[in-house]
């Protein structure tokens, strides 16, 4: 029996392969006590204890550590902990607060911005952070060899910003035109010139700081944020440790962050992500509305609390194709009688009235969602307008509006328009969406009550993008946008010339008076510097969108955050929701966790 054993030995040795790969034992470097920079930022929080480990999960992995390359929120989250910008946003008030720049001045004509950098700030490798780095960052953003998403953001009235170095700690920006959201935008991550200049020159900038860098030489990425990379294992986890040169400290002179080891575990499956949290293995987790019910059972055993964070900042909607154009063969994208329904505001309002969103919230979201009434969600407190026209469930009003359009219900229970066409449409639903099917089945039933026949087509995202953005041969679709931040970020949606103006994108001149008014409001608000005045303009825009209903708003699920009770220095924002800055969080590292009381 000597020979048959060979495969087994072979098998066992192969089995142990992964261990060999990871056999080196990592030592957590001791915290250094380096002197604080001259212009250190003293955090406005009660001092805490250093040394705890923070473990969290993420459902997707970083695609790169290079801010010029990344396109997704997950990579952004991680890089956001590693690199700082000139300015930052206060999580409590959502105001712009100093970052790498300790202060700034705006000229009388509101076009020139002068930023004063903090003196003595160093990158994590000890090199000084100066105005050269800021200039270098903008050189990279505008370089045509490196397509990146920031370029468009910093193109105002078709022109690039002007920027110049005054001295080592002063930079000046000049906007080509009045542009009030400038301070919101300027907080992009500043890049280290000393580390990236060579690759910038030879054209390989976008191949720097890849995931491979994270795997092989994590220490080669100089950081200016609270953390720096310790190690990255794809599909498994990413470890971050404090940046020894970080520019913030607490009132006792203790350099932030308090956390000694920041662990991001990659868990693709949301079920597994939640199980990890509710068995006490991770410190914090986002919890979906439908799952709060069972996750909260473990609150006492594992000492965590679930905080209701209110409606998400994202918006979900159904829209109708209002594109009057023709395809290459000269045929209209959609039959003209249908286009006439979709272009009629009464039709869109009727659909809004006819959709029982309250029922959807109660039944599908376990009561943990909010009806959406505006194109800016309640989740974006600073800009949301609570006084937009509402279209609460009211089938008789819906029927009345349809009747006004000349549509009649016949004996077969179906609705027909004035020329006798049956009122029906197809709706495209991306097949990967999880709540899509539930929303759609309920929408279909609601429309059936009105006599409208809805055909639901689940298609994959690629086809959906092609049909709604290129060939335009569709009736309607369902989609969502992430939200939050300054409304200027939504220009592609709001402006009639926008690429994401879904119902009728990239118009040469506004097709309707209300779209023209929105274009006007958007351009006005960019030139308005008085915050209250800007808010009124944005409020008016929201009222127009709500009345005209190019997007039939759906519901916004509430977001929930689970956090272990041992963490201190969390705050409440203006609405009473829990917020915190990673670098200010602390927990007693000596406290042993008690499980299963």
């Amino acid at each position, binding site marked *: 029996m000597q020979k048959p054993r060979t495969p087994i030995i072979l*098998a066992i040795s*192969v*089995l*142990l392969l*992964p261990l060999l*790969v*990871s*056999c080196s034992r*990592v*030592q*957590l470097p001791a915290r250094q006590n380096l002197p604080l920079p001259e212009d250190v930022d003293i955090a406005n929080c009660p001092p805490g204890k250093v040394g705890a480990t923070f473990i969290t999960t993420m459902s997707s992995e970083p*695609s790169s550590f290079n801010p010029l390359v990344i*396109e997704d929120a997950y990579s952004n989250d991680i890089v956001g902990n590693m690199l700082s910008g000139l300015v930052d946003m206060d999580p409590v008030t959502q105001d712009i607060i100093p970052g790498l720049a300790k202060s700034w001045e705006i000229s009388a004509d509101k076009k020139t911005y002068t930023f004063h950098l903090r003196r003595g700030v160093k990158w994590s490798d000890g090199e000084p952070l100066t105005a050269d780095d800021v200039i270098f960052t903008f050189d990279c953003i505008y370089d045509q060899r490196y*397509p*990146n998403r920031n*370029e*468009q*953001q910093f193109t105002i009235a078709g022109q690039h910003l002007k920027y110049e170095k005054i001295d080592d700690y002063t930079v000046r920006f000049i906007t080509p035109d009045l542009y009030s959201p400038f301070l919101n935008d300027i907080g992009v991550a500043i890049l280290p010139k000393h580390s990236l200049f060579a690759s910038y020159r030879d054209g390989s900038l976008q191949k720097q700081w890849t*995931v491979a860098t994270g795997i092989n030489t994590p220490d080669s990425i100089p950081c200016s944020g609270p953390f720096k990379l310790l190690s990255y*294992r*794809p*599909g*498994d986890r990413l470890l971050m440790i404090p940046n020894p040169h970080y520019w913030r400290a607490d009132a006792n002179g203790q350099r932030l962050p308090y956390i000694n080891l920041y*662990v991001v*575990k*990659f*868990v*693709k*499956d949301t*079920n*597994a992500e*939640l*199980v990890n949290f509710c*068995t006490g*293995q991770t410190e914090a987790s986002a919890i979906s509305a*439908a*799952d709060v*019910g069972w996750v909260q*059972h473990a609150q006492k055993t594992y000492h965590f609390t679930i905080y209701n964070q209110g409606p998400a900042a994202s918006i979900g909607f159904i829209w109708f194709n209002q594109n009057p154009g023709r395809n290459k063969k000269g045929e209209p994208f959609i039959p003209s009688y249908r286009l006439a329904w979709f272009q009629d505001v009464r039709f869109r309002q009727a659909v809004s009235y006819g959709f*029982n969103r309250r*029922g*959807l919230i109660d*039944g*599908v979201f*376990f009561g*943990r969602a909010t009806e959406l009434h505006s194109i800016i969600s309640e989740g974006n407190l600073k800009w949301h307008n609570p006084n937009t026209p509402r279209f609460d469930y009211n089938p008789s009003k819906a029927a009345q509006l349809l009747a006004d359009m000349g549509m009649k219900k016949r004996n077969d229970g179906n609705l027909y328009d004035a020329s006798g066409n049956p009122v029906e449409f197809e709706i495209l639903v991306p*097949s*990967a969406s999880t709540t899509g*099917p*539930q929303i759609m*089945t*309920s929408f279909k039933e609601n429309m059936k009550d009105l006599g409208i026949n809805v055909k639901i087509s689940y*298609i994959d995202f*690629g*086809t959906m*993008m*092609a049909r709604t953005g290129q060939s335009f041969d569709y009736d309607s679709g369902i989609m969502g*946008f992430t939200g939050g931040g300054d409304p200027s970020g939504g220009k592609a949606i709001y402006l009639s010339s926008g*690429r*994401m103006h879904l119902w009728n994108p990239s118009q040469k001149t506004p097709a309707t008076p209300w779209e023209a008014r929105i274009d006007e409001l958007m351009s006005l608000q960019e030139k308005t510097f008085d915050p209250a005045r800007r808010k009124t303009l944005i409020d008016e825009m929201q009222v127009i969108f709500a009345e005209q209903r190019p997007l039939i708003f759906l519901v916004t699920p509430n977001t929930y955050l689970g956090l272990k009770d041992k963490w201190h220095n969390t705050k409440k924002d203006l609405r009473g929701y829990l917020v915190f800055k990673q670098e200010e969080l602390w927990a007693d590292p000596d406290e042993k966790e008690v499980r299963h009381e």
Partner: protein
Amino acid sequence: MIGYILRRLAISVPMLLVISLLVFFLMSLAPGDFLDTARSQRDISEETIHRLEKQYGLDKPWYIQYERWLTKAVTGDFGYSWTYKVNVSEILLQRVPATIGLAISSMLLAWLIALPLGVLAAIYKGSVFDRVSSLLAYAAISLPDFFFALVALFFASVTGLFPVGGLTSITSDFFSPGAKIADYFWHLALPAVVLGLGGIAGTMRVMRANFLDQIRAEYVNTARAKGLSEFSVMFKHALRNAINPFITSLGFAFSGLLSGALIVENIFNYPGLGQLTYQAFLRQDKYLVLAAVVLGAGMLIVGNLLADILLSLSDPRIRLNRGGAFRFRQLFAWLGTVALIIVLFYLARFLPWENKSFWQDVKVSGVILLVIGGLFVIYTAWPVLRQIIPKLVRRPIGAITLAVLAIFYGLALLAGFVSPYSTSDQDLTKTFHPPTVFVWKNGGLGVKTYHNADRSIAKYEPVANGEVPVKWFVAGTPYKLLGFIPLKTHLFGVESPNKIYLMGSDATGRDVFSRLLYGSQISLTLGLIGVTITMSLGFLIGGLAGYLGGSFDSIAMRLTEIIMSVPGLYLLIALRAALYKFFDPSEMFILIVVVLSFIGWTGTARVIRGMTLSVRQLPFIHAAETMGQSRLKILLKHVLPNIASYLVISATMSVPGYILGEASLSFLGLGIMEPSASWGLMLSQAQEMKVFMLGFSWLFIPGVAMFLVVMTFNLLGDELRDLIDPKFKTENRL
């Protein structure tokens, strides 16, 4: 030996070439590309996207992209992953150890359990142990693996005995080497068990059959005659010989595990190849997918080669250099196959891809062909069935399985009448409603009514004295019985707005029982249609290849090898994505059948070819040939009836593959689409922790139904095999 290895490796080169070409072509058919995500972002400008398109070469047609890739791949550069912005080999090599570790440990586990069980079952053939063990083994393959994986995850989270996924503990970087090894195996345990479970049944049945063959062999008698103890006869002589075929199956078992690992890796968050490839498929990260599939196929080729070498080491009777004289012919066959495929792809460019009515015609002719195929299968199988069914009914298991199938198919036929509601009737005030309890009240059957006591966890309590009577033959939603008789009468129901939920309700308050019945129409016919296609195609190609031989045989067999070398689930996903745009979402059913059959026919074709080859040698075929009968006639009239019994068994045993295949696709979100219902779709919708944790156990009933039907088909197939040919060699097709 070295010459043999080199020759084998040389032949694998055209194979890998064709596989990469196939996958690349399929991916180019799928709508959209890697930049779709960027296009949907509101703050990425059109110019940026155009520049990215150029940078990635997406503005060029697929064959130019392929050519670019190929010229680089020859030099060992397999391209650049768009998602991770690094070379794909760098990413892939990171993932290989985890997947190989998982695959090997689960295979070892399956063998450790299955081989002894198989041996014991053979020694005690016909005993209670034999029956119970085979029943359990079939039970293990009668549920989709994603279901087991979720149960295991639930188990881990409730008991805390095992980690809930991942490769190692979070703090393992700071462990000592010993603790690291323990930690690694602790994390490996559950995924390996779940993955291994599927292999146990097949391995055990094959082992049992092999061992039975060996026990009956002459040398066993000799050994006994010379007075060896029964123990040495069984374990020193018979066992060693019975194990040999397993070494051969190693390569294919390995490839099966690779694609099986995809789902398990996803659920257990195990950072292996499957998880990576699946994500890359979804994002259309072309080069990463391509490299992963080629790597998978390469691993299969190397696995098969290793298996053959091991076999020759362990069995001196086998010589590797056999067939060496034919190497030129073999090479020509490969070249011919590659040329044929390239010509086909070239011609594909001239198809009217955009013309919808053309594709409609293709579909109609497909249906006509299918009907012909179906009639043909029934015609062929009829004599066997007429002979077998009376015998089957007399055996208890046979009678039970037939009865169970009759009930299920009967209910599927009458779904509209038996179910109280339609598939889409929802009630948002009664979501996750538990099954209603029956009561006997006022001399009639009634059901309790419920109110929602706690909406936040969907807790329902019965209303005191709220019972309502069940009514028989009530009018309700209109439906079409058998697809054409319009009716309104339902077998039972209750007065609206009350609802009767025999098996509870789902997330939008739809009746699970009604959906189960309507879903059975899809789930149960899917298998039958799929089997019809595979059997017709398998017979046509395998039979002709076996009978004609020559270049047709060579090319057909090379084709089957190519298809079998791509890990099954990957090919399924690629095919589905490629063909998706030609089907209306309501036609998903057809698409899934087509895709599953495309992969399924290869195994059947190869077996039928082998059988035809042996039947061809028999005297009556020579007689027929001498009489001047045409080849087709000989094939249909003489060869086919002699292998019809195999077709019947094989057909029965492959139905479960389709039912489970649809479930796996549905789990990945690629199967039947709402608002249609299928068992796989319903079960995949129950795959959320809240269903386990809040105890909505009725949502698993589709799984129970699936389990029953799959189990029944397996047992029926087993029974048929016992009846038709008790000595029939079990084909290892897992």
